[in-house]
C-alpha cells in the first residue's frame, strides 16, 4: 500500500488499530471478542485474590500473541506502559497502608516506614489486577478494529447520537494527530524545542494552533456534510459474522474457569 506522507506513516506505527485490522482473529465475530475481553476484566476486578488476575493476564497474553499473532515485542512494550505506573503506585501503597503483621520496618531520617502483610497483599492485588485488566483490554484493542466495536455498539442499541459522535471523533483523531505532527516538525526544524524556554513557548503555540485547526476542520466538515445532503444519518455496516458453536463454547468455558479460579482462591493470601 502506498502512503502519501511520511508523517502519516509515522503515526500509523503507533496506532493499534492498524494491528487490529491485520490480526489473525479478525474473522471471529467481534461481539464474542468483546464478551471475552470485558468478561475477563470483570472477573479481574471482582476477584479478591491475586490468583485469578494472574491467570487471566497469562492466558490473555498467550491468546493475543499465539492466536491473534500480535508481535511479542510490540505486546511487551505496550504492557510496560501501564505496568510501570502500577509498580510505582504499589510502592506507595506498600509503604502507606497498614494493618496486619509488620514484615519489615525501618527508620529513614526519623520517618518510620513499615511494610505489613496487609499492605503487601494490597500492593500485589493492585499489580495483578492492572496486569490482568490491561492484558484483557489489549486483547480487545489488538483483535477488534474500532469500526467493528461501533457495529457492536449499534447492535447494543446505544443512542445514535453517541455513535455518530464517536465515529466522527475516531476520524478526526487521525487528522488532529497529523496536524500536530506537522506543526511539531515545523517547530523543531526552526529550533522550537532547543531550550526549555523555547519548548514551553512552542508547545503553547502548538496547542493554540491545534485548537484553531480543529475548529476550522469542524467548519469544513459541516460544509462537506451539507454538500452531501446531510440529514442526520451516518451509515453503519454491520458485518454479520456468525460465530460457530465451538468458539462460543470455548469462550464461556474460559470465562467459567476464570470465575471458578476467582471463587476457589477467594481467601488465598500470599503474605
Amino acid at each position, binding site marked *: *500500500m502506498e*502512503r502519501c506522507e511520511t508523517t502519516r506513516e509515522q503515526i500509523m506505527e503507533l496506532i493499534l488499530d492498524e494491528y487490529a485490522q491485520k490480526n489473525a482473529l479478525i474473522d471471529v465475530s467481534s461481539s464474542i471478542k468483546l464478551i471475552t475481553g470485558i468478561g475477563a476484566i470483570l472477573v479481574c476486578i471482582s476477584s479478591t485474590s491475586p490468583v485469578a488476575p494472574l491467570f487471566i493476564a497469562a492466558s490473555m497474553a498467550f491468546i493475543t500473541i499465539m492466536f491473534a499473532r500480535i508481535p511479542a515485542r510490540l505486546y511487551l512494550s505496550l504492557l510496560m506502559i501501564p505496568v510501570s505506573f502500577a509498580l510505582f503506585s504499589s510502592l506507595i501503597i506498600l509503604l502507606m497502608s497498614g494493618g496486619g503483621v509488620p514484615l519489615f520496618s525501618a527508620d529513614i531520617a526519623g520517618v518510620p516506614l513499615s511494610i505489613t502483610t496487609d499492605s503487601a497483599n494490597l500492593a500485589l492485588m493492585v499489580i495483578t489486577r492492572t496486569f490482568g485488566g490491561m492484558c484483557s483490554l489489549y486483547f480487545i484493542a489488538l483483535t477488534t478494529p474500532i469500526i467493528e466495536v461501533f457495529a457492536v455498539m449499534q447492535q447494543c442499541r446505544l443512542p445514535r447520537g453517541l455513535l455518530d459522535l464517536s465515529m466522527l471523533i475516531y476520524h478526526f483523531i487521525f487528522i488532529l494527530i497529523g496536524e500536530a505532527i506537522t506543526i511539531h516538525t515545523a517547530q523543531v526544524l526552526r529550533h522550537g524545542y532547543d531550550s526549555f524556554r523555547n519548548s514551553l513557548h512552542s508547545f503553547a503555540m502548538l496547542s493554540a494552533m491545534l485548537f484553531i485547526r480543529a475548529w476550522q476542520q469542524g467548519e469544513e466538515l459541516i*460544509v462537506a456534510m451539507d454538500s452531501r445532503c446531510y*440529514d442526520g*444519518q*451516518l*451509515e*453503519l455496516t454491520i458485518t454479520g459474522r456468525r460465530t460457530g458453536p465451538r468458539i462460543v463454547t470455548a469462550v464461556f468455558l474460559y470465562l467459567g474457569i476464570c470465575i471458578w479460579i476467582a471463587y476457589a482462591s477467594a481467601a488465598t493470601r500470599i503474605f
Partner: protein
Amino acid sequence: MPPILEFTNVHYAYPNCPSSLNGVNFSIEKGAKVALVGPNGAGKTTLLLMCNGILRPENGEIRLSGSPLRYDSSSLRKTRKNVGLVFQNSDSQLFAPTVYQDVAFGPVNLGMDREKIPHMVDENLHAVGLEGYDKRPPHQLSGGEKKRASIAGVLVMEPDVLIFDEPTSSLDPAGAADLMELLDDLNAQGKTIIISTHDVELAYNWADNIILMNKGVVIHQGAPDQVFNDPALITTTNLRTPALLEIYTELVARNMLENTGSPRSVLSLVNTLEQKFRQNPPVKKQGAITVCNVDIIPTEKIRAWIAENPDHRRGAMGTRAKKLAEQETITLDFTYGVIDKCLLRALIGESSLILTTTGMVDRVQRRVLAFEEESRIRVAVSLMGDGTP
C-alpha cells in the same frame, strides 16, 4: 434547452471581508467540460461553493437547468443531489470510519432504498477503480485513492453536474493523468464537469470551455485557444501560455507554419509539422491500433496475443486495466495520453495495443475519428476478440 448552470450578476462578500465576487456572469451548457482558471484569490472556490447552494449570493441569480436556485432545505437537498462537489482537500470530505460508510453517506441521507445502497456503493467504487476498498479506513489511503473515494461518494448521488476544486493539486503526475481520464469517462456518460485549476497545460488540453476569473469577476469565457492566445488576458491573470501553444505561435511567427488554428495536442502539432516538412511520401505503411477490453477478454488470451505480437507498443487506460497489467507483469509503454501516443506511433508505422475497460472502448474510436477529421489520416482500429487477430 436552457444552460445547465447560469450565473447572472452574482455578488458575494464573506462577513467582515472585502467582497469576493463582484457581478459574476457565465453560463454552462449540458455535457460541457469547463475549466475555471484564475490567480489565487480570484474567487474560484467561492464561486464553486455557490453552485450547490452552500453560499448564498447577496445579489444576482443562479439558475440550474433554467430554474433559479432556492434556499429552503428541501430545494437545497435537490440542488446538492444534482450538483456534486469534490473538495480540494479529501481529508475534509472523507469523514466516515470506512470507505463504504463514506460512500453510502449521501444515499442514506437522501433516504434512498436501504436494500439498494450496498449495490450502489459497489458500483460506484468499481467506477472509480476502488473495488475491494470498502472496509478500509480513509486515513489509510494514498492521496490518489482518497480523491477517488471522495469522487465515489459524490457520484453515488447521481449528480448531473460534477464540480472539482483543484482536482490534481495534491496528486502525482501519473495520478493526475489517471484522474483526468476518469473525468473524461464521466463526461462521456453525459455529466457536465467543472474543474477549477491553476494548471494551464491541463486546462488547455482538457477543457472545451474556459472561464477566466480575476478579482471576483469573469473576464472571459470561451474556447481554450481563444483564451490562451490573448496575451493581455494571460498577463492580467498571472497565467502562463501553455508550452504547446507557445511553440506553435513561435513557429507561425517565423513563417514556418501557416496559422491554421492552434493545436490542442502534441499529436496535432506533430502531424501539422510532418505534413509540412516531410518531402517524400510517408515511409512504410501506417501502424494499427488494437483495443483490448480487459473486462471481457480473458487474461490468458491477452498474454497469448502479446506473445504473438511482441513488437506492438502497449498502453493501458483506466485503473482496472493498469492494475491488470501490473498483476500480469505486462510492461507498458504508455500510461497516460494513451490514444494520442498510439496515434503518434501509428503515423511512423508502429502498431500498438491499448488495454482498457468497457466504458472507455468507445473513446478510442471517437478520438481516432476526430483525428481523421482533423488530418484526413485514417488509422485502423480493431477490437480484440472481434474475429480480428
